[in-house]
């Protein structure tokens, strides 16, 4: 299995990652369902992972892929805790609409 890494320039991967990240930001800013907001955060984490893997491959080192491994571990922990918070919120307020959840505001 020989990969031709020179065929696709590094910039293409970076641009795709930037576009995906911006779509994630857009989703966080426009959606009101807390679960979908969480999914947009996962999308942003993944776009950054793409950047790390691309840099790792184009620099010939393994460090980027190690970092992606840790990002995934953090993302798994974050998703579990976030969804537990959403369940606790739903139990108390009967909604996951982030416009109606303002108990942290004063």
């Amino acid at each position, binding site marked *: 299995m020989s*990969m031709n890494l020179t065929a696709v320039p590094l910039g293409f*991967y970076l641009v795709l990652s930037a576009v995906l990240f911006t779509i994630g930001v*857009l989703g966080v800013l426009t959606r009101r369902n807390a679960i979908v907001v969480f999914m947009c955060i996962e999308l942003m984490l993944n776009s950054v992972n793409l950047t790390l893997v691309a840099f790792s491959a184009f620099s010939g080192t393994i460090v980027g892929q190690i970092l992606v491994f840790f990002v995934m*571990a953090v993302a798994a922990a974050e998703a579990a805790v976030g969804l537990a918070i959403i369940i606790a919120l739903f139990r108390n307020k009967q909604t996951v609409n982030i416009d109606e959840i303002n108990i942290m505001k004063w």
Partner: protein
Amino acid sequence: MSFEIIFFFFIAVLSVGSALFMITRLNPMKSVLFLIVNFFCLAILYLTLGAQFIAIIEILVYAGAIMVLFLFVIMLLNLGDESRLVEKKSYKRLLALPAALILLIEIIIGLRIPAEPLTLPPIAAQMGSVEYIGKALYTEYVFPFEVTSLLLLSAIVGVIVLAKKRSG
């Protein structure tokens, strides 16, 4: 245009399209399914970059575990469709302008990076294999690896405390 470039554009369009569908579907279930499509596209891109281990983990952990958790919570809460995307607060729209500007700058910078020919060492093709990642994880990066286990443990405890029913 070489085959690799065409393949990259096909996967890129697929992933951007599924991401756009994900943030525009009102039914959260459809959003989850489009996000899984996006994760598969990213896994294919990781494969083209020679990161086999990361690609498999992407599918196993993200599409397999995390998204099933999302699906489970959506089904548990039995949420209906989100109401139309009508913005009550308009200041959020103002944030779209800086976000778009940042994206434009990033695209310009990204495309200006020259496609310099790479002379990768022969080891680079297997660099993303389980063997190499495992060696690095258990020797050079063993301390962060152990700290990750603490992080996951604290996440497990936190989740149980948060999701537990208050027993008075």
